[in-house]
């Protein structure tokens, strides 16, 4: 298990980001925005919850960064003992094992998802957050199993559950096993729903493929960050199929909101408060006696 600390806290205390994890976020002193090309200091960027201080572009961040943003102070990571195996001995230009080893080294992560528990506004929340840097945030057996275990924990402890999706889709190197994780995670979510526990699905840039077509679209509440790419097929595949240019804003969070697939889009600066509000309103005080709350 790993202990984390809110970056707000660390910022206040002047403590550097833990060096144990090589975060998705930029290292060093300077940061140049890919969107507006403005240069700012990494310190400014962090202070602005990893959004460009000039144009507000939400920079891709990792699971631990999100945990720091969301949780009050400390959080605890679970299920880090689960490791992917190259059981099919899959090799394309590289072997799957090579890809795994490289990813462990590059990211310091255990796989493409981390599960943590902490408090949001003093209310418990279990969060499974994906890491795009680990083989494109691809879903293999470990991602599926960690989600399944997190759901079991949420049911056992009667605690709300949230998934932060960020994925290129299935992990091809696990073939049918990766495909089956769509069925596995969706089936597990029915148990969470039966237990009456809220499930928040937070879709971040990018969320595509089998992840979108399973747990990411199944939230009681689905929400996203501005400008996030969300889709089933990747834009390149669609372009090749239809042999036409894609319309502006296609597969962006704003279009999905317009088309009715998201409940809202939240600026990262307001993320914690929004989750806090949801946890409050989705937990009516007399929910246990199963009567409908009515104000006269």
């Amino acid at each position, binding site marked *: 298990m790993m202990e984390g600390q809110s970056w707000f806290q660390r910022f206040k205390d002047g403590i550097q980001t833990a060096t144990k994890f090589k975060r998705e976020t930029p290292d060093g002193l300077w940061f140049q925005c890919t969107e507006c090309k403005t240069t700012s200091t990494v310190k400014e960027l962090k202070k602005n919850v990893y959004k460009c201080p000039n144009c507000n572009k939400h920079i891709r961040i990792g699971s631990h960064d999100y945990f720091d943003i969301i949780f009050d102070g400390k959080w605890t990571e679970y299920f880090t003992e689960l490791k992917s*195996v190259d059981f099919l001995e899959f090799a394309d230009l590289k072997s799957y094992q090579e890809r795994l080893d490289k990813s462990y080294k590059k990211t310091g992560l255990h796989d493409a998802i981390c599960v943590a528990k902490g408090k949001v506004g003093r209310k418990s929340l279990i969060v499974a957050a994906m890491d795009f840097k680990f083989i494109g945030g691809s879903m293999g057996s470990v991602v599926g199993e960690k989600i399944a275990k997190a759901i079991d924990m949420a049911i056992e402890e009667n605690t709300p559950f949230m998934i932060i999706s960020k994925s290129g889709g299935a992990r*091809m190197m696990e*073939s049918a096993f990766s495909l089956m994780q769509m*069925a596995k995670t969706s*089936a597990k979510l029915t148990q969470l729903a039966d237990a009456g526990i809220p499930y928040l699905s937070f879709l971040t840039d990018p969320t595509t493929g089998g992840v*979108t077509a399973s747990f990411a679209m199944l939230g009681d509440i689905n929400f996203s960050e501005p400008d996030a790419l969300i889709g089933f097929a990747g834009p390149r595949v669609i372009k090749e199929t239809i042999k036409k240019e894609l319309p502006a804003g296609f597969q962006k969070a704003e279009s999905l909101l317009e088309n009715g697939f998201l409940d809202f889009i939240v600026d990262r600066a307001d993320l914690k408060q929004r989750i806090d509000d949801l946890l409050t309103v989705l937990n009516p005080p007399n929910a246990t006696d199963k009567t409908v709350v009515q104000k006269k």
Partner: protein
Amino acid sequence: MVFLEFEKSLESLYTQRNKLEQVGEESDIDVSPMLAELDKKITKTRKEIYSNLTGWQRVQLSRHPERPYTLFYIEEMSKKFVELHGDRYFGDDKAIVGGPAKIDNYHVMILGHQKGVNTKLRQYRNFGMANPEGYRKALRLMKTAERFNMPVICLIDTPGAYPGIEAEERGQAEAIARNLFEMAKLRIPILCYIIGEGASGGAIGIGLGDRVFMLENTWYSVISPESCSSILWRSWDYKEQAAEMLKLTPQDMHSFGIVDGIIAEPIGGAHADPNAMAKTLKKSIKTQLNELVQIPIDQLIKQRIEKYASIGKYELAE
């Protein structure tokens, strides 16, 4: 007859046979002994080819243009089939068909992907690639089946869910996800058969069930060998290798425990004798239904969820 590239030796034997027949018709020579000899050779060659198929060859067979599709099986296996249309939200998808029918004494809801049987119809059926309304129609039919206590039979044969602009705008991902969620807890037995191509989300979108079987010359994978080649090898030329790597054959899938069994096809593939294939399929459906309807529904759903929850290969470090 359409011959695949690995059936070349068979094709030349058939050419010889046709010529010989012509000779027989046009002259007084008795060609029947020679024909019998050729037929023996054809049978032997076919057996040889078909007893040793590679992953890629099975992919090609699963796409054989003369292969039987869902509506053929429904026609052959069932009575009183009434095709139902539309998802009640947007439209009627032609790539997924279905409706209530009787298979002997069983009242079932039978549905599946439908490919076209000729050039014009292939377009009309969108090559078996469903849009969101196809998956939503399938779910509507399943919910109807649940209401009337009819087991659901899904026949899967798709190169993938359609990757188009409108499909995305209407929520292709949401439609598939919703089906997975609802099928996991549907209060009626679900029986699935891969009858051709089992490509990715498009296949599993109607493929979550109590029992899943694959016909002998089919494939089931997270991605097609061509797309896999294009993404991982960055070239379209590695489809054979990708097919081997993906372990997508019925034998592989059965050995992984992901599918429950393999349904034998006539020698030469389902298209060599579609009626015999339909008979075999019907027999399997009846055997499975006999067992499934005995299981109390709460127990069945529990088993279904546990089965999927247990799929995955990983190790525990430290």
